[in-house]
């Protein structure tokens, strides 16, 4: 298999020297997808300011095909959770994610979005959005610089370009029986109910 792949790559290089471009449907499809990821116009806190800066002329996210921030989740491929997710806001974030069409991706930007950050011990802050929706790329930082967001974006592009369209390894959105919508948490008497979606959330285990 590995040998086969290598020889295919060699053949491709050889053909390109003669002006013949070869590709696979999967590569072409993923190339198109990764270069037209449209994020949702959605910001929560100070990280959103960095996200806005990333889209402006100096950092120019348009170079990656992501200049169109869509104001409707129905036209967006990517939700950048940029900032503190309060418990009061969390159901709305999940609902926005549910309204996006597949394939859809999530970048959790900054310490708050990935873990609650400096507000983790507070009574009103969700301890990471990955408790309710599947996150593709986590960016640490408080707030992360635009370069970090660009790096996360390129990581996401790499992830998209490596996704297989067939086989067992294919991503969630190509598996019919896997969900594309996730349960929206409800406001409870003491906090959100449930406190996490066990199917999505895989916390690190401490091995003793």
């Amino acid at each position, binding site marked *: 298999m590995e040998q086969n792949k290598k020889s295919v790559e060699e053949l491709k290089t050889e053909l390109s020297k003669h002006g013949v471009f070869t590709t696979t449907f999967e590569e072409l499809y993923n190339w198109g997808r990764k270069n037209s990821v449209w994020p949702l116009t959605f910001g929560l806190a100070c990280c959103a300011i960095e996200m806005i800066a990333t889209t402006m002329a100096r950092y120019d996210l348009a170079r990656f095909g992501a200049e169109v921030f869509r104001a409707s989740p129905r036209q967006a491929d990517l939700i950048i959770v940029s900032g503190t997710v309060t418990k*009061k806001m969390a159901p709305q974030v999940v609902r926005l994610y549910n309204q996006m069409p597949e394939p859809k991706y999530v970048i959790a930007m900054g310490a708050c979005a990935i873990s609650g950050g400096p507000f*983790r*011990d*507070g*009574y*009103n802050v969700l*301890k990471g959005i990955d*408790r309710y929706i599947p996150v593709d790329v986590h960016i640490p930082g408080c707030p992360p610089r635009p370069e970090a967001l660009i790096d996360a974006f390129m990581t996401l592009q790499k992830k998209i370009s490596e996704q297989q369209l067939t086989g067992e390894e294919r991503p969630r959105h190509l598996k019919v029986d896997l969900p594309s919508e996730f349960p929206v948490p409800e*406001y*409870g*008497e*003491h*906090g959100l109910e449930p*406190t*996490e979606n066990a199917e999505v959330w895989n*916390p*690190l*285990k*401490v091995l*003793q």
Partner: protein
Amino acid sequence: MAEQTINTEGLKAAIEAAVPGCRVEILPNGSPSEQHSLILDNEHAIAVARFLRDDPKLRLDFCSDVAGVDWLDFEVTEKVKVKKLIDGVETEVEETKKTVTPGYLEAVYHLFSMEKKHGPVVVRLRTANRTDQTRVPSLTPMWRSAEYQEREAFDLFGIVFEGHPDLRRILMWDEFTDYPMRKDYVPPADDDEPVAAIRESGQ
């Protein structure tokens, strides 16, 4: 703003003269700011507030802050020397005496005058306790700017403002039943197991 401080003793006397029967207590502030506060009794609070707002010399027309404070029950232990008869002889014995003062909730109002350019006058209202009698009169009818801040104090401390036009939670959702800024509030031990375990293991 060129602020002139208002003499607290004089203010207390003026209030007591204007609102008969009211009880005003001065709570001194020992810091260099010397912002002493006045503790009003709940029955006459509205009348005193109206006086503070409308009196031509005071004209405290602006309520800048309403803050909630939670005072837990506090216990004072002191050693008292008591004379007792022991074996027919009067001897002095030291005894420890515990006094428990029940806790209460407090709403603190900071009042200024735009017209007279003076302030602040700090006014405090106290509830009877912090469990079942958590009512104080609302001063929103006197200062509209107190409306949202009283809602916030209601939301986070559970102070019930009687006479408030729209007393609902403002920051937390309506279904929420706790008062998270109270000192004995314990957040739900929801979901912090991995971090708790890491903290315990000391890594």
